[in-house]
């Protein structure tokens, strides 16, 4: 016992400085992330909604009357009784997959084009980065105007070309395509710049050596460029998946905040559960926890896959 105490005391005296320096962050994270997360987990085991949570109106305080329902919420969602989870999950996966795929391939393509000496290179670079500089909510509203069925500029162009106008944001499928387009427009510059940085860190000698050995441009791309981009790609794809999976603004502001629609992803649906109609706090919390679990599982598998590839090489 005494040894434990001395060990703790010694560890404290050597490390108290470090602990003092990380303390503010730990407090902020504990109060604003840890505690809400715990509360969210707790709410997901109850039937809390707007009507039965405690609140104070004026001087009257109304006691909370919600009660624990065990795993009921999860069971309802996962067994499909609640009816929306799997279709939304499917669309969220398609949304994330297509967005990240397009972000990455377009970003890679543009980075390859930019990564060579030529005229106006700096100009192109600035112009291509521009979408990143526009706040996402502003960009989304702007695209909504461009997609407008009657007065939108896209339909004006289509009419000039002699085609019928398209109701971009009306039909469910087109809504989804439009949302992907907006998000791709927003996200490509980040990938492009990150990959460009990766390209520039590949030593020139590698390319020259490959060229001396008679490698075709495709072979150089396949066996020099792509392996050289591995670490950067690993990071940006992981970040891209997380950001896109949780991309709230684009869907919420583009599709509108009204009635239920097929093009909502899990995050926007959870948000709507919590803040529209009868506020279903428990249902929203359940969705939130499920989203988080999905992402965590993905991140763990993804990192493991990357390190396994590393080990093989």
């Amino acid at each position, binding site marked *: 016992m005494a040894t434990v105490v001395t060990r703790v005391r010694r560890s404290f005296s050597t490390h108290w400085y470090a602990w003092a320096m990380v303390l503010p962050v*730990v407090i902020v994270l504990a109060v604003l992330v840890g505690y809400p997360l715990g509360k969210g987990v707790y709410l997901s085991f109850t039937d809390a909604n707007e009507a039965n949570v405690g609140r104070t109106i004026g001087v009257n305080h109304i006691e909370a009357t919600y009660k624990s329902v065990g795993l009921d919420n999860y069971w309802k969602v996962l067994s499909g009784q609640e009816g929306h989870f799997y279709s939304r999950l499917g669309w969220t996966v398609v949304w994330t997959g297509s967005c990240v795929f397009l972000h990455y391939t377009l970003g890679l393509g543009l980075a390859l084009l930019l990564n060579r000496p030529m005229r106006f290179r700096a100009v192109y670079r600035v112009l291509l980065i521009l979408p990143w500089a526009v706040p996402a909510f*502003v960009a989304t509203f*702007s695209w909504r105007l461009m997609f407008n069925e009657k007065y939108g500029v896209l339909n004006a162009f289509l009419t000039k070309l002699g085609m019928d106008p398209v109701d971009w944001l009306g039909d469910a499928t087109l809504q989804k395509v439009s949302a992907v387009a907006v998000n791709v427009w927003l996200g490509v510059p980040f990938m492009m710049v*990150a990959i460009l940085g990766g390209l520039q860190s590949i030593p020139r000698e590698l390319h020259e050596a490959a060229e001396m050995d008679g490698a075709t441009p495709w072979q150089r791309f396949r066996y020099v460029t792509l392996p050289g981009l591995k670490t950067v790609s690993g990071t940006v794809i992981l970040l891209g998946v997380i950001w896109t999976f949780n991309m709230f603004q684009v869907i919420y502001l583009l599709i509108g905040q009204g009635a239920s629609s097929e093009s909502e992803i899990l995050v926007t649906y959870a*948000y709507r559960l919590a803040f529209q109609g009868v506020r279903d706090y428990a249902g929203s919390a359940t969705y939130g926890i499920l989203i988080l679990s999905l992402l965590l599982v993905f991140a763990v598998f993804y990192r493991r896959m990357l390190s396994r590839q590393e080990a093989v090489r």
Partner: protein
Amino acid sequence: MSTARPAGAPKHRPREQRSRTASAALHTALVAASLVSVFPVAFIVFVSLRGRDGWQEPTRPAGFDVSNYSHILGETKFLTWFGNSVIVALGATVLGVLIAATAGYAVSRMRFPGHRPLMWTFLVVQMFPMAVLIVPLYNILGDLELLDSYTGLIVTYCSISVPFCAWMLKGYFDTVPVEIDEAGRVDGLTPFGTFWRLIVPLARPGLAVTGFYSFITAWGEVAFATQFMSSEEHYTLAVGLQTFVGQQKAEWGLMTAAAVLITIPAALVFFIAQRHLVAGLTAGGTKG
């Protein structure tokens, strides 16, 4: 090994020289991509200069005036919202960078129990969908009577940006040579003194970048602001912009003018920071 290469091995032009057609194709592709990326921005600027109803004829280049701008500046609460956004974004930036910097430094230089779990926390917190946190945070802030106040929103934004900033700053501090710390220690500075007097001045670019990042995140946040700021006096720009294009009315002319004014500060901050932003991002991410 490679001494006996077949005589017919293809010879390649050195990469600096390009044929005329290749060059033309390259520039065509880049011009096309640039058009796609610039068009929406240019279009919004164009519409905003066309007066209140100009957006209904998007292809007619006539009737320019600045009435949209004078209207939103003079007759809406735009300037109040703008001020709110500035207060909230700056508050979140200063607070966030300060606490992220000390934590980033500690994680970068000191090996202490809890070091690895902390790095993991920084990474995992970035995955949190706001849907998990928003309801509990709403209730907590309600209990503390911080709903519809600057403080509540500032603190909330801190929790979003701090993990990422600490992560990035750790990567940045790793690039500052340890010898500097040792010199400081030899000269009798405390670890915190070393950090504050020697490392912070050296790390100014890194701090600036994380500051810009927090600012831009707070400037563009929608979900929390929409729920937490309920009175029109306290709207941030992200909430205010939604009022121009609501269920009943669609003032797209005003919306575009507001969009331009909102984008200008964000874009300025962004273009100053962007070069370093990506370096910090990928450095922090790969060194884990």
